[in-house]
């Protein structure tokens, strides 16, 4: 029944699109959405669901193309070089936009070669310890690190990603040293934390693990408070240099036509508000946060500059 309804709905949309095609040209053909992450990850799932829902709303087909490698910079680089007509866009997340370009030669300049189409999700990055850990607050962690230089073992899901920089900045401000132990991805970090190989982690998986009673949240690494433990302060509230927004969003080549941006500003809020997307976000503990093109550009620019300053200060490479 639902299927029939959606087919009819799609048909109606196509018809109405055809009717206004002369007045409103975009989109009139298939859009390619590049996903710089491999099939099956969180970014890929978000991209595919947006492709389906936004495609239905706009009455065109949106194809997802996985173009991975170079810490997501290859796919985004390909988008930056595409024709700025709105038919090639890319899924983006924090690290390849605001963090990694400060430490490597990315094939694009985030503020010059890209237009920001919109943000759809902001995810939490809780700072967690095992549920049976003796550390109850952030101050306990810092006290331990001060008393035992270099002996605190910790990790994040991506080396040199936003959370890594944020926690390094915190340690830098306190003047303590700790040992970062790299693992490939958040689930391996969680396994290492639960198994006792490390004692502290900042991973998005921490929300579910805390709800499951396995871990405890001491702080939140992104701008807003964590819904699982609203008592835990954010890193900036606790007086540390940065708590970068960890976002999912979309971008295209620089100088996208205003018509394209206006269309996505109209469609993305509807996608984010749809019951399908709400359900997915609730299960993955993503906070839904739509920011339109103008606001998203502002967020990216601000975080880019803040990360640039912090990374230079703590000397991360």
């Amino acid at each position, binding site marked *: 029944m*639902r*299927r029939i309804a959606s087919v009819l709905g799609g048909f109606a949309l196509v018809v109405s699109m055809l009717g206004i095609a002369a007045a409103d040209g975009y989109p009139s053909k298939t859009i390619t959405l590049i996903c710089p992450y*491999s*099939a*099956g*990850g*969180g970014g*890929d*799932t978000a991209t*595919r*669901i947006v*492709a*389906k*829902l936004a495609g239905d709303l706009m009455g065109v087909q949106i194809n997802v*193309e*996985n*173009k*991975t*490698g*170079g*810490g997501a*910079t*290859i*796919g985004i*680089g390909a988008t930056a070089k595409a024709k700025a007509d709105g038919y090639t866009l890319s899924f983006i997340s924090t690290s390849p936009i605001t963090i990694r370009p400060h430490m490597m*030669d990315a*094939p694009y300049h985030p503020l010059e070669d890209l237009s920001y189409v919109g943000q759809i999700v902001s995810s939490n990055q809780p700072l967690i310890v095992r549920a049976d850990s003796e550390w109850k607050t952030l101050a306990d962690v810092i006290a331990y690190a001060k008393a035992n230089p*270099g*002996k*605190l*073992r910790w990790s994040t899901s991506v*080396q*040199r990603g936003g959370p890594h920089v944020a926690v390094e900045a915190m340690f830098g401000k306190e003047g303590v040293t700790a*040992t970062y*132990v*790299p693992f490939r991805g958040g*689930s*391996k970090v*969680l*396994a*290492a934390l*639960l*198994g*006792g*190989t490390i004692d502290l982690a900042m991973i998005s998986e921490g929300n*579910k*693990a805390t*709800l*499951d*009673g*396995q871990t405890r949240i001491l702080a939140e690494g992104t701008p807003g408070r964590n819904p699982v433990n609203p008592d835990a302060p954010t890193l900036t509230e606790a007086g540390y240099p940065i708590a970068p927004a960890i976002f999912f969003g979309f971008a295209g080549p620089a100088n996208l036509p205003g018509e394209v941006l206006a269309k996505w500003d109209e469609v993305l809020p509807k996608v984010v508000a749809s019951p*399908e997307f709400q*359900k*997915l976000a609730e*299960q*993955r503990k993503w906070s839904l946060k739509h920011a339109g093109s103008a606001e998203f550009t502002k967020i990216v620019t601000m975080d880019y500059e803040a990360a640039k300053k912090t990374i230079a200060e703590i000397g991360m*490479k």
Partner: protein
Amino acid sequence: MDTIIEGIGLALTWQSLLAVVLGVVAGQILGAIPGLTASMAVALLIPYSFYFDPWVGIPMLLGMFKGSLFGSSVTAILIRTPGTPAASATVLDGYPLARAGKGAKAIKMALYASVFGDTFSDVCLIFFASILALVALKFGPAEYTLLILLALGSLGMLSSRPVWKGLVATLIGVMIGIIGLDPITASERLTFGNPELEEGIGLIPMLIGFLAVSEVFRQMGGSNRELSSKATRYSGKREDNRVSWPEFRGCIPVLFRSSAIGTAIGAMPGLGSTVAAFIAYGEARRTSRKPEEFGKGALEGVAAPEAANNAVSGANLIPLLAFGIPGDIAAALILGALMVQGVNVGPLAFSQNPLPIYAIYAALILANLINLAIGLGMLHVARFAFSVPRRLLLASVLAIAAAGSFALRGSLFDVQLVFVFGVAGYLMMRHGFPPVPLLIGFILMPLLEENLRTVLLLAPTYDEHILFIFRRPAFLALLAIMGSAIGFVLWRRRRSRPAGRTGA
């Protein structure tokens, strides 16, 4: 008890039965095509999963993953092209069997071994998930290092004569494996500033290039008469096309051992099914009464890696169900699908709502049975498909190799790599350098490096420095098991010598 029956009932409707059948068929076909994986197909289906009943979608996923592992071994055996990396060890004895006209026997053995491995690990999952997961969590970088050393030890015996050629091949594999980001410092190594190389060389281009494309080049050098003949010949003798009961019985110890290896490795997040397949192969060879037959078409050499890689796929659900930690990409996708449907998995699931877990158990066992039935049917399709004249098959393998390597991550660079590796593999083959040490160097050495260096990174954070490894119970237990295994081998050798028997 009622919940168990209700849970099983969820997974035993005609809709879910149909879904498993569809999943297994799709999985077997996708698995056979290198570069296309079950994970990719599942990712494509996720946006539509909202419109499915969970007990249609999830059984389909499980069927797809199980089917793809068997599908990939069909092409590994018949045309030396592992559809997924997990089947690369199957090539070692499967392809020689196929060339001897015993392809159907090898595929049947692979199917029985796959279903055996699946069922073994599913039973372990159902009855011992929480205990296994608890033990597996105690395995950290120190234990992984020891396990990989053990694997290298038992696989070291695979290197053929002369030894130096095997060594050179291993080193080439290691060199290719070094390309990419340093596992600890994340600085670039041997990338020459090329961002395409930053994440390293993919296993799929390696396998397709060195195994499949190099073999195509070799066969292209054959006479015209050879090229016009059928691509795979099947012996006319009945016993060459089936696995007899004595043959199967002979493989039972290998099947149990390999399934146990696969289950143990699957329960630990971090090693994966390709590694498990090679370890099981090495163990089967080490414990075999006729190790000299391995690599030339030993049936045990097909049974071991197939049982192990399938056992991994079931066991990957162990940390998922016990801790909510997905062991691999397949488990991560299943977790995603469950979450979309509002089903919680993890430590609290058994007390909160165990119903879906029982349904998953039922779906797993069901998928095994259907995989067996459809696999037997698929065998005939495969026999037919690969009976085309050789020259046609060779051309299609090249086309599929190019398309498959592109599909994986949309990179033309990978397609170029496949052909470069194809030429390199051909030259190595011509000059007697074995491909297996190369793959082992490529797959295992980076893992060894990563884990060993993590141990060294951890050492200064402990008061006893590097000796902290001896405070880890799992490390000591593993050391004791390995010590007694080596001791047993030495003892057996010593005992067999005075008796005048020739030891293996």
